[in-house]
């Protein structure tokens, strides 16, 4: 995760369960193409940690203008992938579909460009929790390299 000092990964109480593979994220979150940023999510520790995956293709709408003739996956798509993975990690622990509402984005660094076609992996881990707000450290990896890393805060609101 981004910084060792934030990685006092404790087992936060209250949320737990068996690992689960989410093959169809649209069954859990309301996001739809083209803003659906994960194809699948492996929740290793419900409520705590998991890994999302997404294949980005050059012809996707949000790559048309970023940039014409030279597609690069926008940083905001990588943040969204981390946030959507985290939302599913949180909602899976509650056993209910719903929304992960993004409340804060911080300390993001974009270390290498993601050039489609590209398979991106989003690794997330909850590093803090207060009330319904969850602080999540996340990484986007592509081709074995860290493309982006940082922290998001989101609430998980079951519907």
């Amino acid at each position, binding site marked *: 995760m981004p910084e060792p000092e934030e990685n*006092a990964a404790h087992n936060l109480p209250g949320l737990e369960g068996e690992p689960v593979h989410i093959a169809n994220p649209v069954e859990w979150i309301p996001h739809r193409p083209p803003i659906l940023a994960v194809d699948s999510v492996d929740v290793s520790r419900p409520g705590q940690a998991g890994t999302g995956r997404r294949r980005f293709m050059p012809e996707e709408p949000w790559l048309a203008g970023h940039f014409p003739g030279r597609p690069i996956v926008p940083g905001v798509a990588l943040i969204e992938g981390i946030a959507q993975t985290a939302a599913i990690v949180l909602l899976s622990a509650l056993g209910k579909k719903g929304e992960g509402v993004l409340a804060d984005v911080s300390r993001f660094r974009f270390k290498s460009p993601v050039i489609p076609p590209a398979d991106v992996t989003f690794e997330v881990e909850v590093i*803090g929790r207060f*009330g319904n*707000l969850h*602080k999540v450290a996340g990484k986007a990896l592509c081709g074995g390299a860290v493309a982006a890393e940082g922290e998001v*805060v989101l609430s998980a609101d079951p519907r």
Partner: protein
Amino acid sequence: MADPLVAELKNLIVTRLKLEVAPDSIDAAAPLFGEGLGLDSIDALELVVGIEKQFGIRIADAEMGKKAFASVNALAEFIGEKQGRK
């Protein structure tokens, strides 16, 4: 003489939340949220993470947070009580 824990907490608040105020200028008796310093719920989460890291004390829920975050003095008292129980 000022309570060193109060001074430490003022530093933590300013550093952790990247506030553009001098730690000494924070009124230890003033509310941290709403009026007073005007912090919000995301700041509260950031402080929860910082306090756990620095003091090893977990503020588990909003009810506990309401008491702990009433003011810097209240937070110092809360941490002092928790440390006393260790």
